[in-house]
C-alpha cells in the first residue's frame, strides 16, 4: 500500500508535551483543574466568550475573526492549550483545552455546526455569464437545421488552375488539378504552381471545413500572403463576400497581413472558409494563424481544423460584468445596472442575429398577409424554449400584446424576443412550478449550462422525469453531447486555475526560452492530458494526480530536454516516476504558481490546500509582500518563507500551506527538476497535519499527490468542487450528508469522474 510506504503516521495528540507547557506557564489552575475539570461549555463561557462572543462570531475590538473553519478538534485543543486565552495562555489543563475545543467545534466552528445553525438553502440565482451565452446560442440554434463536427485533422482543399500551355486567362478555363485534405494552411509555393497540372501564373485554392474551438473567448486570426485571399470565420448562412473576416483579395505586390477578431464559444465547431488566388504575382504563399484567448500566435493546428462542414453558430459577444465568485464558484446572486444593461444588449444582439432569418423560421415571407400571425406564433415558440416550459395563457397574451398596429410585425417580433431574453422567466431558471420541466431545466444547467434539448423536453412533457433512474438515463444520454465535455472542461479549468496561467511570464535571464509559445503548448498539454483521463474508460480521478507522463510536442521536448517518442503532435513522455505526480507537477501549474524568477511555495501551498485537498483557508490577517531582497542572501526559498510566516497569526494557516508548498521545492519556476536552491540542497520534507488531525510526514510532491488521491479529505474536496461548479449551490443546501454520500459513492465507483458528474446532475435535477 503506497500510503503506508510514504507516510509516517504520528499520534494525534502529544499530551505529554502539552502538560509540560501547562505546568511551566500556569500554576494557578493546574491542580484544581486536574482534579475537577470544567465542561467545555463552561470553559468557553468563562474564558473565551469575552473575546469571541456567545457563538464564536467575535467581539468588536477584541477578536474580529469569527471562529469557523475545518481544523480538527485535536488541532484546536493543541492550539488552545498553548496559545489561549490570549491574555493568559497556557492556563488550561489538557482536559479543559480538549473539552473546550470539542465544544467550540460542535457548537459553531465546524462546517456541520454551521450548516445546523444556519442551514444553507438553495438561493435564487440568475444565469451566470456562461449559462446565459450557452442558452442563447442553443436557443437561436434550435431553429436552424444545423450540423457540427468534432472530427479534426485539417481542411478540405480544392486547387484549380489553368492547364500548362493554356494561353488564355479566363476563369472558365480553369480546371481542378488537385483535391486533398491540408492539415494546416502554411505554404510557400515560391514562383511555382502547387502541383503539376496548373500554370504557375494563375491558380486558385479553396479551403473549407470547420474550426474546432476549445475555449470561450476572443480569437484573433491573421493571414499573411502576397496574393489574394478572403478568410471567413463563422459567417452567416447565405452570407456573401462582405461577411469575410479578413479581405485581402486585392494584392499589392508585397507580402502583407490582415487580422480579424471573433468571439467564439468553446466546445463548438464553426464554419471556416479560405479563398485564395494568384494572378501574375511574382510568388505565392499563405499562412493562416490564430491567437486563442490567452495564447500566442501560431499556425492554426490540424487538431483545431476539420474537413467536415459545420453550420454557422449565433454567438452573443456582448461583454458581461464578472459573476460573483466569492464562494469559489460563479453564481448569479447579485444584479447590477451593468449586468442588466449587458442582458439588454445581449437581447438586442440576439434579435439582430435572428432578424435575417425571422420570416424563414416563422414559416412566412416579408410580404405574406398572414405574417403577423406567423411571427406571433414564432415568438411563442421562442419563449417556450427560453422559459423551458409551455407558456401560460397570460404569458401568451402578454407577448401577443406587443403586436400592435402602430409597429410592423417585424419590429413587434424583435421586441418580443428582447422581452423574452430579458424576462425573469428566462434569466432565473429556478422559478416556476416544481414539475418535470423544472427537473429538465436543472439537469440541462448542471450538465451543459444551457437549455433542455428537444428530447429532454419531450420526456418532461410525458412526466417521465420523476425517478433517479429516469433522470440518470437522460443524464447519460446528455453526457455524450459535446456541451457536456465543454462544461467538464470548464470545471477542470476552474479546479486547476488554468486561466491564472494565461499571464505566465518568466525572467528571460533566469529561464531563457520560456516564451509565450512554450506557455501555450504547456496549456494544451495539460488540457489534453486532463481530458484524456476524464474521457477514458476508467475516468479515474486518482490518475489525474498520479500519472508520471507529460504530453509534449517538439517545442516542449526541446525546452524540457526530453526525448520525444515517434509520432505526431503531442505525445506522452515518461518522466521520473518517483517525482512526477500528474497535474500537480505539470509544468504549466508549477509555473503558474511561481514568481517570475523563483518558485513560490506559498502560492503552490495555497492552491494545493484549497483546490486539491479541499481545505478552507481564511484570508491572511495582514497583507505581506514577498520582498526577495529583504532576506539573508544565503537563504533558500524555504528558509525565506519560514521566516516570513513565523508569527502565530500567520501560522494558523501556514502550518497547512507551507509543508505542502515545500514538498514541491524540487521543481523550479518553470517545472524542471532541481536538486539545489541558492547552492544548498533542496529540502522537501515537512510534517503536515491533515484535515482529520492525522499527522503525516511529506517527503515530496508525490506524497501530496498520493494523499490527495487516496484520502477521504482529498476526494471530498474534489467532489465538493465538482458539485459546486456544476450546480452553483453548496452541497449542504441539499442535505448535510449529501457530500459524504456522494464521496462514498465516488470511492466505491473507483473515483470515476464522469459517473460522479452524472450523479451530481441527478441529485441537482431532482433536488432531493
Amino acid at each position, binding site marked *: 500500500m503506497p500510503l503506508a510506504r510514504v507516510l509516517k503516521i504520528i499520534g494525534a495528540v502529544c499530551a505529554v508535551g502539552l502538560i509540560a507547557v501547562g505546568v511551566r506557564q500556569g500554576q494557578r489552575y493546574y491542580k484544581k483543574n486536574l482534579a475537577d475539570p470544567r465542561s467545555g461549555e463552561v470553559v468557553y463561557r468563562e474564558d473565551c466568550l469575552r473575546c469571541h462572543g456567545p457563538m464564536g462570531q467575535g467581539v468588536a475590538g477584541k477578536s474580529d475573526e469569527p471562529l469557523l473553519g475545518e481544523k480538527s478538534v485535536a488541532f484546536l485543543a493543541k492550539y488552545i492549550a498553548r496559545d489561549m486565552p490570549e491574555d493568559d495562555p497556557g492556563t488550561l489543563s489538557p482536559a479543559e483545552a480538549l473539552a473546550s475545543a470539542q465544544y467550540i467545534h460542535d457548537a459553531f466552528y465546524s462546517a456541520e455546526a454551521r450548516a445546523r445553525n444556519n442551514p444553507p438553502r438553495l438561493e435564487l440565482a440568475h444565469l451566470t455569464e456562461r449559462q446565459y451565452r450557452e442558452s442563447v446560442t442553443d436557443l437561436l440554434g434550435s431553429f436552424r437545421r444545423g450540423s457540427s463536427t468534432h472530427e479534426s485533422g485539417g481542411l478540405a482543399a480544392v486547387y484549380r488552375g489553368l492547364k500548362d500551355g493554356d494561353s488564355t486567362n479566363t476563369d472558365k478555363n480553369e480546371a481542378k488539378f488537385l483535391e486533398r485534405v491540408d492539415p494546416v494552411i502554411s505554404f510557400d509555393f515560391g514562383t511555382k504552381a502547387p502541383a503539376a497540372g496548373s500554370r504557375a501564373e494563375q491558380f486558385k485554392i479553396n479551403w473549407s471545413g470547420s474550426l474546432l474551438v476549445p475555449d470561450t473567448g476572443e480569437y484573433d486570426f491573421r493571414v499573411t500572403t502576397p496574393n489574394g485571399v478572403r478568410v471567413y470565420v463563422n459567417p452567416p448562412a447565405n452570407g456573401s463576400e462582405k461577411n469575410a473576416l479578413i479581405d485581402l483579395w*486585392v494584392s499589392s505586390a508585397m507580402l502583407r497581413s490582415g487580422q480579424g477578431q471573433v468571439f467564439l464559444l468553446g466546445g463548438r465547431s464553426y464554419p471556416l472558409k479560405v479563398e485564395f488566388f494568384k494572378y501574375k504575382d511574382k510568388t505565392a504563399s499563405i499562412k493562416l494563424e490564430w491567437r486563442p484567448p490567452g495564447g500566442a500566435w501560431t499556425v492554426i493546428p490540424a487538431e483545431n481544423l476539420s474537413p467536415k462542414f459545420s453550420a454557422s453558430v449565433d454567438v452573443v459577444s456582448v461583454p458581461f460584468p464578472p459573476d460573483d465568485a466569492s464562494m469559489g464558484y460563479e453564481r448569479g446572486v447579485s444584479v*447590477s445596472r451593468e449586468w442588466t444593461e449587458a442582458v439588454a444588449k445581449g437581447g438586442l444582439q440576439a434579435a439582430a442575429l435572428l432578424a435575417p432569418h425571422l420570416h424563414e423560421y416563422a414559416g412566412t415571407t416579408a410580404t405574406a398577409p398572414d405574417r403577423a400571425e406567423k411571427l406571433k406564433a414564432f415568438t411563442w415558440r421562442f419563449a417556450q424554449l427560453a422559459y423551458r416550459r409551455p407558456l401560460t395563457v397570460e404569458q401568451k397574451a*402578454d407577448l401577443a400584446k*406587443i403586436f400592435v398596429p402602430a409597429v410592423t410585425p417585424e419590429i413587434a417580433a424583435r421586441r418580443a424576443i428582447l422581452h423574452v431574453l430579458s424576462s*425573469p422567466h428566462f434569466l432565473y431558471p429556478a422559478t416556476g412550478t416544481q414539475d418535470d420541466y423544472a427537473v429538465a431545466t436543472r439537469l440541462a444547467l448542471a450538465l451543459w449550462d444551457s437549455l433542455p434539448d428537444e428530447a429532454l423536453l419531450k420526456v418532461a412533457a410525458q412526466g417521465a422525469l420523476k425517478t433517479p433512474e429516469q433522470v440518470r438515463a437522460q443524464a447519460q444520454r446528455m453526457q455524450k453531447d459535446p456541451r457536456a465535455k465543454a462544461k467538464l472542461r470548464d470545471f477542470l479549468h476552474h479546479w486547476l486555475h488554468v486561466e491564472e496561467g494565461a499571464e505566465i511570464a518568466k525572467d528571460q535571464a533566469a529561464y531563457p526560452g520560456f516564451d509565450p509559445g512554450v506557455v501555450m503548448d504547456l496549456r494544451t498539454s495539460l488540457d489534453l492530458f486532463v481530458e484524456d483521463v476524464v474521457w477514458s474508460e476508467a475516468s479515474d480521478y486518482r490518475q489525474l494526480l498520479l500519472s508520471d507522463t507529460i504530453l509534449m510536442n517538439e517545442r516542449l521536448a526541446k525546452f524540457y530536454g526530453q526525448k520525444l517518442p515517434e509520432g505526431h503532435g503531442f505525445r506522452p513522455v515518461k518522466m521520473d516516476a518517483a517525482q512526477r505526480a500528474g497535474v500537480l507537477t505539470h509544468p504549466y501549474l508549477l509555473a503558474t504558481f511561481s514568481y517570475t524568477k523563483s518558485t513560490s511555495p506559498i502560492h503552490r501551498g495555497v492552491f494545493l490546500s484549497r483546490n486539491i485537498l479541499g481545505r478552507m483557508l481564511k484570508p491572511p490577517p495582514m497583507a505581506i509582500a514577498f520582498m526577495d531582497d529583504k532576506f539573508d542572501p544565503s537563504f533558500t526559498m524555504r528558509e525565506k518563507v519560514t521566516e516570513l510566516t513565523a508569527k502565530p497569526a500567520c501560522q494558523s494557516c501556514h502550518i497547512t500551506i507551507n509543508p505542502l508548498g515545500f514538498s514541491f521545492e524540487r521543481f523550479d519556476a518553470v517545472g524542471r527538476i532541481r536538486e539545489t536552491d541558492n547552492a544548498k540542497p533542496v529540502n522537501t520534507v515537512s510534517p503536515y497535519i491533515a484535515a482529520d488531525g492525522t499527522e503525516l510526514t511529506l517527503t515530496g510532491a508525490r506524497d501530496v499527490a498520493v494523499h490527495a488521491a487516496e484520502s477521504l479529505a482529498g476526494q471530498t474536496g474534489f467532489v465538493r468542487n465538482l458539485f459546486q461548479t456544476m450546480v452553483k449551490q453548496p452541497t449542504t443546501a441539499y442535505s448535510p450528508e449529501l457530500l459524504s454520500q456522494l464521496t462514498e459513492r465516488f470511492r466505491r465507483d473507483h473515483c470515476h469522474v464522469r459517473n460522479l458528474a452524472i450523479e451530481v446532475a441527478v441529485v441537482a435535477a431532482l433536488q432531493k
Partner: protein
Amino acid sequence: MNLQNRRDFLRKLGLSAAALPLLGGLTSLQAAEPTAAKQRVIFVFSPNGTVPSEFWPEGEGSAFKLKRILQPLAPFKDKMLTLKGVNNLVRGDGDSHMRGMSCLLTGIELFPGNIMGGGGQPAGWARGPSIDQEIRRFLQSKPATKTRMGSLEIGVSVGNRADPWTRWSYVGANQPVAPISNPYDLFDKLYGQMKESESMVSVLDGLRDDLATVSRAVDAKDRGLLDQHTTALRDLERNMKEQQTSGALIVPTSPAIGVTMENDNIPVVTKMQTELLVSAFQNDLARVATFQFSNSVGSIRMKWIGIEEGHHSLSHDPDLNTGSVEKLTKINTWFAEQIAFLAKRLQETPEPNGTGSMLDHTTIIWTNELGKGNSHALEDIPWVLIGGGLGFKTGRALKYTKTAHNRLHLALAHAFGHRLDAFGNPALCNGGPLNLG
C-alpha cells in the same frame, strides 16, 4: 415601390412622422458655443463617362448655357461651377476604369496587383488616401470641426465586392473604405443606438410585470435579488431616457422592412440615402460624405425611364449609334436629377444654428471615373460643383487645358484651411491649387 412624398420614405426608414417637426432645430447642443460657419463637402460619383456633347455647357465664364444633361440643375445655375479640361493624369498599372475610379479622389498610382482589367497590367489598391478622407482627417483633428463620425461613405447599388472598380474612398495606401449601400444599415449606423434604447424602453413595463409575478412565487428571502433587478431596470430606463433627450437629435422608430436592394428600387433607395445624408448633416454627425452610384463599369438598368439595357454596355456603343447616345443622355440626366434633389433638400433646409440654407454651407461635387465611355478617356472628367460650402465663386463654366485633377483636390483642401503643398502624386501638383475663388 412608389414613393409618395418625403414623409412616406421617412416613415419607411422608421423616422416617425411625429419626429419630423424636430428635424428642424435639432442641434441644440452645438448652439451653446458660437463657432465658425460649418463647411461641408459631398462627392457624388456616377459611372461610365458622360455624353460630352450633351453635358458641357455652351459658353464660358458666367455667360453659359446648360445643355440637356445638366438641365435638372438649372435652378442652381448661379450656385454652380463646371470645370472642363481637368483630367485624371495618373498612369501606371490598371485599366482606365480602375484608374478612373481608384485614382479619382486619390490622385496617385495603383500598386501592381492581381486584379486584371480590360487592358493594361493587373493592379491593386491605390497608393495613398483620397481627398475626402484627407479632409476628414484634418477636420477630425481639431475640436472645433470634429464630429461623431467625421465622414459618411454612402452607396446606391454598389457591387458587392471589394476591388479597384468599386472603391474610390481610401483612408490610406491599401486601405479602401467600403460604402454602405443599404439605407437600413446606414440608418443603424447613424441612429441604431437610439433605436435600440427605444426597443428596450418599450419592453420595460412587460418586464416589470414578469418580475412582479416571479417575485410573488419565490421564497421571501429571495425577493431581495428580484428587487435589485427591478431597481437596476429603473436605473437603466432613466439612463436611456436621458440619452434620448440629451444627445439625441431625432426620436426614430425602427425601420420598416420592405424596400429590397434590387435594381428596380434604385430610385427609392436613392431618395432614402439622400434623406439620411441630409439628416446626418443636419445633426452634424459628419461634415464630409461620398455618395457613390453603383461603381466603375456599373450596370444599372434604368427601367424606370424606359431603358432596359445595362449602363456599361450602352456606354461602349459608338457615337454613331444615336439610339444608344440618346439613352446615355437620359441616364446621365437621371443622375443630374438626383443631384438636383439633393441640392434642393439642402437648399430648403435652414442651416442649423447658422444663417441661410444648408446648401450655402455645403459643396456638392459630382464627378465620374471617365470623361467619355466608349473611348475610356480620362480627359475632360465631368466636374460639377454646386453650393456655397467651400466659398468658390459660382455661376461659372470654367475651361482648363490638360490640368491635373490633383490641383482641384488641393483647392478643396485649401478651402477647408488645410494648406497642403501636394496631394497624391506630387509631380501632378505643379501650379498648386486651382484658383476657384
